[in-house]
């Protein structure tokens, strides 16, 4: 495998890590609006992700940085082409990021309400936008011979398929978040999270089916990559069916793993469809940017491979350790509430 191919895989891994980890904390952020009945429950929900959300977000930043370093043309075309989507993403992440820190530091109703909305919208918009973005990527975008993308807002960026992608991604993330809540809380909240997940179960399943059908209809994914995609989605279906009995039997750890795996499979499917391109041109297939066209030189990739080889295991080790330290359920006990 060439180093550029390895880095394509690594960026995929970074996005997978991001959707699995920040996926649940986005889901928890959404649940603060739908699941929590009072301020105390909101605080419990926020505290379940308190020690983690910041580091989870770093997966996205690292993916962005790695794109810049390993595939400058991918980074340049994608970020400038999706300009408005990234502006909205940034606004959402900014509002959300400070909200966790600011919310608990002052206690008037308006103050708390403002940051509650920031957490909710800041958790809702990013997964939706990323869903839109990824589905747009595999559908193809107006990339010219100069590698520039000049996309129209309606049609290229926002269309039936990408909106379906955004909504389905959102539903998966929410389900994943509910599973995390039932894993990390106790009592009534834990029960309600599980019940809400059971309600969401069917809707999410339908959503994923619609998404797969839409993918077959709007993209060449199955023609080009059917051999990998069909087994991949097949596994997702099996996991999804298995999830039902896990939910019924309140196997929280396994349910959480299942929703995470389904999210991962959907994310992996985007990268499978893209490969070996990083940007698919809807104007002319010869304008598509392959990972080889987009990649940095061999020297840069080698340097980064060595750095990643040394430090990724260290990062993973202390990340796992921090989850171990905060493994206990967050309950209505003032000892645990920080936000």
């Amino acid at each position: 495998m060439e180093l550029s191919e390895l880095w394509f895989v690594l960026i995929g891994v970074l996005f997978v890590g991001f959707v699995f980890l920040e996926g649940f904390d986005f889901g928890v952020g959404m649940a603060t609006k739908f699941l929590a009945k009072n301020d105390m429950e909101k605080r419990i929900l926020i505290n379940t992700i308190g020690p983690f959300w910041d580091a989870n977000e770093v997966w996205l930043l690292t993916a962005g940085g790695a794109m810049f370093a390993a595939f400058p043309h991918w980074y340049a075309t994608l970020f400038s082409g999706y300009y408005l989507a990234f502006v909205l993403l940034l606004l959402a992440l900014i509002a959300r990021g400070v909200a966790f820190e600011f919310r608990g530091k002052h206690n008037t109703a308006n103050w708390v309400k403002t940051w509650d909305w920031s957490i909710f919208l800041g958790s809702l918009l990013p997964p939706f936008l990323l869903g839109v973005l990824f589905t747009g990527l595999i559908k193809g975008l107006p990339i010219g011979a100069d590698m520039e993308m000049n996309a129209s807002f309606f049609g290229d960026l926002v269309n039936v398929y990408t909106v379906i992608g955004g909504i389905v991604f959102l539903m998966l993330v929410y389900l994943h978040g509910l599973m995390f809540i039932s894993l990390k809380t106790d009592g009534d909240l834990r029960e309600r999270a599980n019940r809400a997940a059971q309600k969401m179960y069917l809707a999410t399943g339908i959503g994923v089916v619609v998404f797969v059908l839409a993918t077959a209809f709007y993209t060449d994914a199955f023609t080009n990559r059917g051999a990998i995609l069909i087994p991949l989605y097949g596994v997702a279906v099996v996991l999804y069916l298995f999830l039902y009995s896990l939910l019924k039997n309140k196997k929280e750890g396994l349910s959480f793993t299942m929703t995470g795996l389904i999210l991962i499979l959907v994310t992996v499917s985007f990268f499978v469809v893209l490969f070996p391109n990083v940007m698919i041109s809807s104007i002319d297939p010869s304008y598509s940017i392959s990972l080889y066209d987009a990649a940095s030189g061999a020297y840069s990739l080698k340097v980064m491979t060595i750095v990643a080889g040394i430090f990724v295991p260290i990062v993973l080790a202390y990340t796992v350790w921090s989850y171990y330290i905060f493994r206990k359920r967050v309950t209505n006990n003032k000892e645990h509430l920080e936000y």
Partner: protein
Amino acid sequence: MSELILARIQFASTTIFHFFFVPLSIGLAFLVALMETLYVVKKQEIYKEMSKFWGKFFLINFAVGVVTGIIQEFQFGMNWSDYSRFVGDVFGPPLAIEALLAFFMESTFIGLWIFGWNRLPKKIHLLSIWLVSFGTAISALWILAANSFMQNPVGYTIQNGRAEMNNFLDILTNEKLLVAYPHTIFASLTTAAFLVGGISAWNLLKKRHIEFFKRSAVISLIIGLVSSLGVAFSGHTQAQYLVSEQPMKMAAAEALWEDSGDPASWTVIAGIDTENKDNTFQLDIPYALSFLSYGKFSGDVKGMNTIQEEYEQLYGEGDYIPPVKTTFWSFRIMVAAGGLMILLSFIGLVLHWRQKLPTSTRFLKWMIPAIFLPYIANTSGWIMSEIGRQPWVVNGLMLTSSGVSPSVSSGQILFSLIAFSLIYTLLAIAMVFLFVKVIKKGPYASETGDATVTDPFSTGRVG
């Protein structure tokens, strides 16, 4: 307005706004870690309370620093796509490595620090804040490594129509990085020292928690003096570096149009006439520029007109003179603010030595507005460094005007500029509001009970 101007305004505002928070994060993380170390070593509760109290400022500030940093990382691709294509091979790796080495460390251990007071053994908890502090410092190293490449490109060859890295070690030992890094770290420490010093002074004036704020003030004055002297000395090495590697920036910072002659005198103030490329008046100190440039009292410094001619030979027709007035005045504002900081921390320590610090009303009153001195110095230093580099985005390799995204319209940039400016303003207001609130509450907020009355679940702990 053109895309270029708007993209530049957006870059400048984002960078300057982000750089309000970064130095304080770096400096405060260190101070808080130092205070917690005193607690673990001396086993006195007051140091624990100190690290918690000052830790609140750190956390509020850090949150804003992080979110504005995300814009910083993404806007290279969003607004400067041609720049990103041209230098991504060299400029991207430091950013990616920063995320991997620094961001993960900071964000994971900050979580452990906030939520770990009662869950982690004391020493592990202390280690957490030191790792956060280390993370912030590492982060600065990689960002400055990337920025230094823009100031002084090294370790690359031009291949496939772009700059490609050929020596990673060169990038890490870039002379510009070696002079800029200590300067930035010392400046960060002064920023935290003067914030802690100023807030402590206010409380001492109000005679609140005298022991707590006296000790805080002394720590901050010691760090303040050491670091402000460090800023001055490392700044001097930067100036010497500029003369040899970025002579145009140095000449602009001195409003030096013609060659200085030997020995060179330093211009304190000048009336700059950029139209006629001349100064209407100037106040000079003889020999001083020679000393500033070479560390001795002789030596000639090249003027902008000479360098302009040299650059035209090298790079072809064009205007290679940066905005002179901005470069000149931002340099002077930085130096003046730095000098005041040395003076104030020196006076403060003398007062402490004579045991007069808590009662020196006049000095304490000075220390409150002095909170802004490091901000003024940091901002003007950053402006001088980046404006003085113009018209280059990568010195000698790529003009700023060639780096802008071709596919992004001015309307899109304008939208983002307004949206970001609005959110910056709101964040700044919220942050100042929270700072004032924390100051008014004081340390021991949980013990006086004001935090628990309205909220039965608050533990009054940091976070």
